[in-house]
């Protein structure tokens, strides 16, 4: 069904330009179902300025509030916003994503965020990753609770992987999840005695009374064995995809590699940092623009590289909160509230900016200063968990939360 829907709704031109192989158009429904759906989450740490990422150029108040930072409306400048629907536009550096939006493979939810008012990076990231805003005692992350709620018969050690030196809160919890900095470095390097050293460490950790180190050790060695059999070796991205040479690009490249290696990847996590622009944020060019450039080039490369596999894949971006509507005294923006999320992939009903737009006039703002939140971020998560990953009852993943709205992007 999924492939049929994509076939029907997508224009051929866009697919070809992104390198989607024609093979996927011919794929049978049965083959698609046999494969695992994949969710790739991207955390933009530091609170991206959602108002300059997905620009509400139709708002007069946007331009009043940001005399030096506003992105020009389409047609008003060479570096103007890229029109999406006559009201919202992409930051010019996100222009490569326009093809995906037009191919209805990318949806945006704007004015989205937390019911909690915190403007602390740390708390807000924690709330988003545990998906329990306002509750600090939650020990596990929402992605891990999903894994737990939907135990997989044939789960592999690679079911959940963060391509990062640390395991993010979202993936911490009862179910195994891997943190891998570099796939090529993942293993024991014991010189001439690798096997002996590896089996020694393995039995040490297996015999440890220390439950944390015991289970992490077991997960690590299971994964090492599986990776050895998968024989990933050298990797050349498909369809001429070119990842940016950044930590983010490198993480996405490895995610694509794992998806294609069929090692059982279901949930992947990548970090994209450095979004906290209190000073000289820049408009069409500058600090934010450079970060968005990295983001767009990474996402485009990932989609291109995965090619027809994208029909099983959803990419979800998130950031802990948005930034104040009015620019501060240093051509930057201070911590705010509502933000925008992007959802990309074959199963997405894209080509639309979802969510109720609250407006940016002072009286329409949250606490008079920030973009108000009209969609709880958990509604977006829940829709992904339900609509894409196929979990019927999402309540265990989002304790105490019942989504009031179905946005319909999946």
């Amino acid at each position, binding site marked *: 069904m999924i492939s049929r829907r994509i076939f029907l709704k997508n224009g051929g031109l866009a697919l070809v330009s992104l390198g989607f192989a024609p093979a996927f158009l011919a794929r049978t429904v049965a083959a698609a179902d046999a494969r695992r759906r994949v969710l790739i989450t991207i955390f933009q*740490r*530091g609170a991206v300025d959602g108002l300059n990422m997905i620009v509400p150029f139709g708002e007069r108040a946007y331009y009043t509030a940001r005399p*030096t930072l506003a992105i020009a409306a389409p047609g008003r400048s060479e570096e103007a916003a890229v029109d999406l629907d006559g009201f919202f536009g992409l930051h010019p550096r996100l222009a490569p994503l326009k093809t995906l939006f037009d191919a209805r493979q990318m949806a945006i939810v704007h004015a989205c965020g937390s019911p909690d008012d*915190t*403007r*602390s*990076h*740390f*708390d807000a990231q924690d709330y988003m990753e545990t998906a329990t805003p306002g509750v600090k005692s939650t020990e596990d992350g929402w992605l891990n609770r999903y894994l737990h709620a939907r135990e997989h018969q044939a789960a592999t050690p690679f079911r959940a992987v*963060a391509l*990062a*030196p*640390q*395991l993010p809160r979202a993936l*911490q919890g009862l179910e195994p999840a*891997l*943190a*891998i*900095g570099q796939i090529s*470095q*993942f*293993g*024991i*390097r*014991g*010189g001439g*005695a690798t096997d*002996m*050293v590896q089996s*020694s*460490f393995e*039995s*040490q*950790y*297996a*015999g*440890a*009374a*220390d439950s*944390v*180190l*015991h289970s*992490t*050790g077991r997960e*690590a060695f299971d*994964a*090492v064995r599986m990776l050895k059999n998968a024989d990933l070796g050298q990797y050349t991205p498909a369809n001429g995809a070119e990842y940016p040479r950044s930590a983010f690009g490198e993480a996405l490249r490895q995610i694509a590699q794992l998806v294609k290696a069929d090692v059982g990847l279901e949930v992947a996590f990548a970090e994209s*940092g*450095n979004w*906290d622009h*209190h*000073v*000289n944020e820049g408009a069409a060019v500058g600090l934010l623009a450079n970060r968005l450039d990295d983001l767009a080039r990474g996402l485009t490369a990932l989609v291109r590289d995965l090619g027809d596999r994208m029909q099983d894949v959803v990419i979800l971006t998130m950031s802990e909160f948005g930034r104040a509507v009015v620019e*501060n*005294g*240093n051509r*930057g923006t*201070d*911590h705010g509230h509502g933000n925008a999320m992007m959802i990309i992939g074959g199963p997405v009903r894209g080509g639309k900016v979802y969510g109720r737009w609250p407006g940016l006039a002072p009286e329409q703002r949250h*606490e008079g200063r920030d973009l108000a939140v009209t969609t709880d971020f958990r509604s977006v998560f829940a829709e992904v968990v339900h609509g894409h990953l196929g979990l019927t009852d999402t309540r265990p993943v989002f304790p105490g939360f019942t989504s009031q709205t179905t946005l319909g992007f999946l």
Partner: protein
Amino acid sequence: MNHSAVRHISRTPLVLSHCLLALLVSSLIPGSRITAAPRSSSAVPANADDKTIVHVLNRLGFGAVPGDVERVRRMGLDKFIDQQLRPETIPDERITARLTGLDTLTLNSHELAEDYFMPAQMAQRRAKQEAASQPSASATDKPDTRTPEQTQLMQAQRQVFTDLAQQKILRAVYSDRQLNEVLVDFWFNHFNVFAGKGLTRNYLTAYERDAIRPHVLGRFRDLLEATAKSPAMLFYLDNWQSAAPEGARTAIPNTRNRVSPPNPRRPFGRPGQIGMPPRQRTVADLPPKAQNKRPRGLNENYARELMELHTLGVDGGYTQQDVQEVARAFTGWTIANPRQGGGFVFDPRMHDDGEKIVLGHKIKAGGGEHDGEEVLDILASHPSTAHFVATKLVRRFVSDQPPQSLVDRAAERFRETKGDIREVVRTIVTSREFFAPEAYRAKVKTPFEFVASAVRATEADSVNVMPLVQTLRELGMPPYQCQPPTGYADRADAWVNTGALLNRMNFAVALTEGRVRGVRAPVSTGSGSIDAARDEIVDRVLAGDLSSATLETVAKASRPSQAVALLLGSPEFQRR
């Protein structure tokens, strides 16, 4: 800098009743001594066993070096702890020798700017210009046109950072003032700044040396002010650019600044115009052509993190309104001639001189530079700060789940000593909770603690520790490079994961086999017996406390280096 007049906000009668309660409680604990001073009773065991001594070496320092246990036993655990709390009494000559040759460590920020950063910047600019003038060079295909001289200048600039990273590791490994180094690491992390953010890097050496290091066992209020006025922090959290909106500024002609008392470590920048006294140029002096870079209003970044991360804690009881008021109070706290490595200066032209209300305290209009100091007084003496700082210290020294009883006593000690860090730490490391069985090996080492303790355990000789910096990067904890202001986490869940665990095992193997360049462990030469190498670590570093699984694997090792690798990569060695 005299702020004693306003520093101490009146203490509530609650404090007194707490003191009495503490005395009462301590008298109920069997074996506790009540001393005349209001110091809480010490639970340091008189005849400590090896496990207890190793526990102390792991918590007050970066783990045991073979021989430490015997040394501490001879000295007496009580005396050892007391000595660590007074690092000035420990000669520590070894480290002086180790640090010779790291020339940039003793230079001030102005000298570093003049001798390293500015020449490198100019060389870089020249190289860029030359590259641009090459007709063949396209944007994507830039030939390397740097002259050897330019390359050398750019490398020299990197030397400042490598010297700093080098000294951090060397001190952790070789200093006898172990607790002092633990606390330098702790407080730097508490007041984190990120080397990767612009000019922060230029000020890093001075930040750790002059703002953090002198106060790690001193008064919290002094530490707080030292960081608040440090160019590294002013830059990192953007306060140097925070200014009152045009309408709210102090009406002062745009010609001269009020000048702070000269600081000999930070010479003044350029002299001003002819006929004017020496000036300290700030961001408010940007010429008309750079008008669009001049600050035009508040920046909340420092104000928020000051309360959330440095003092009150996120639940410490402040509001968004407080954030804005604190930001107003700190307007004008800026940097003189930042590119030339200038120091703190108060620029009244940027200051919002109106009245402020911070956490219910009124700060009168017209306070100028003093506004910020008053805010620091309010925050340093706030009960939330005592609680927040106590919690973090107990988490560092005792457990990821800080025992409430100890947090309360440490916070109480913080309040009654007006933030004397030495006494707060003493309360923690001599407490019964610290010596309780639940605290033993309760902490997973951070990557930094793991690497330092492994090098100590093997008594490795380090000539160049930069490969260890690379190891720390792979383990997710590169020194001075934590981007968010929260600093690195101090809880196991942040550091225990599959990739990092394998990396730790690999590091253990590489270190013992002599594959970490610049760091040579004696065991890597292959001389000596397996038994001797094993016993050295098992008995003298891990107090013989290992699982049978670990001991069995080590017994099967085929050479000494392998035995030691298996011990350093073991689950037991990951904890402290």
